């Protein structure tokens, strides 16, 4: 008769040696280790992205609606600091571009923009202009012929290939009673264009002031109101991250009004001033 020895001792084998216990895998331990690993990765990323102080310069500023914000990030290439674009400011002076820069640009505007294109001969571009155009009629006025049918400017944009948009609206809305309604509707135009073409560079242009005579005598077009609207447009450009063009800076006199010789009726620019306007656009681009 054989005797069978049953190895039922979990700690020692039959020869008296201590056993190596195989422990059951503890899921909780692994989960904890994984969480710690993820936290370590996130911490490393956070440390990498934190702005670097350069001593006396106050690089990191608290963002609020009134202050300009300039944030510096370490460049991935050579460690030099690169400046993020400040949308609160007008597009700075740049190297002049030729007419063909505007070949794939769409100009959206009223009769003043129409005059710009006709008087400067900038014909190799996309002109979506209409006399009296407003931030509302961009959506509602059939103005552009496509496939033998007149469609609204927004509808036309949906069927248009473009990489840049130059928008100049606002003077026809200076008769509106509520400023916030104007800028809210302008934002809708911007939002729609961004939805149609998220990659497009959007330039929004200042409303060009009118002559002193028009400002004094017109029933609703006043330079003071134009200035208020321009402040709103500039703030909108910052919020929407689009490019603001200070076109009036090269067109107005020292009092901020359009000179008498600039326009027959104090509103619509003559050829010489249209050429100054186009010249400004050619010297203020971002890409």
């Amino acid at each position: 008769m054989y005797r069978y020895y049953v190895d039922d001792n979990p700690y020692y084998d039959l020869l008296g040696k201590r056993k190596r216990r195989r422990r059951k895998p503890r899921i909780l331990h692994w989960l904890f280790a994984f969480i710690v690993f993820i936290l370590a990765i996130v911490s490393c990323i956070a440390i990498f992205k934190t702005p670097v102080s350069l001593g006396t310069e106050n690089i990191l500023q608290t963002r609020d609606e009134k202050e300009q914000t300039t944030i510096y990030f370490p460049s991935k290439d050579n460690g030099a600091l690169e400046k993020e674009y400040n949308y609160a400011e007008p597009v700075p002076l740049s190297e002049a571009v030729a007419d063909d820069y505007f070949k794939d640009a769409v100009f959206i505007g009223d009769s003043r923009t129409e005059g710009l294109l006709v008087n400067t001969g900038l014909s190799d571009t996309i002109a979506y202009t209409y006399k009296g155009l407003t931030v509302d009629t961009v959506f509602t006025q059939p103005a552009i012929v496509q496939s033998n049918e007149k469609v609204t400017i927004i509808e036309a944009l949906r069927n248009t290939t473009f990489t840049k948009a130059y928008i100049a609206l606002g003077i026809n809305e200076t008769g509106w009673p509520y400023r916030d309604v104007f800028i809210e509707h302008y934002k809708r135009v911007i939002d729609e264009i961004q939805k149609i073409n998220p990659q497009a560079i959007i330039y929004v242009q200042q409303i060009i002031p009118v002559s002193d005579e028009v400002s004094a005598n017109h029933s609703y077009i006043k330079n003071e109101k134009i200035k208020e609207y321009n402040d709103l447009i500039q703030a909108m450009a910052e919020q929407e991250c689009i490019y603001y063009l200070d076109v009036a800076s090269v067109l107005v006199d020292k009092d901020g009004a359009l000179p008498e010789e600039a326009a027959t009726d104090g509103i619509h620019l003559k050829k010489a001033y249209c050429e100054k306007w186009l010249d400004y656009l050619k010297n203020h681009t971002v890409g």
Partner: protein
Amino acid sequence: MKTRATIVCILIAGMLLCGCSAKQENVYLDTQALAEALLTEIDFEDELNPVDSTMIKILYGIEDAEEAWVYVGSGATAEEVAVFAFATSEQAKDAWNKAQARVEEQKENFMSYMPQEIDKLSHATVKQLNQYVVVCVSSSDQVEEIIENYVNKD
């Protein structure tokens, strides 16, 4: 006999009359001189500037003119001058239709924007003279007279 002779005379007269009406006058027009005369002799409110052939095609849809002198305003008014010369009167007829269409479109555009310009557009001169087309939008009533002074007929 008398009746037959009368009928024959009437037929011959009719044929002569038809022949006369079928004969076209040859018209010659110095298009550049006429355009300049319209610009200088009419008192325009707006500053009119010349546009090139690409812009003419955009504004009028005309691209087959042998000569084209087109001057448009700043946008402050609907004032405009255009003088075209074509190879044939058929081409001129087609251009005349396009010029009429432009004037009608301008009326539509200015109606709500600047209704005071509608009168100029309603009285615009859009004239075909054989292979020539002349367009003038202004408040002047001298346009026809100026055109007559520059038309040479054979």
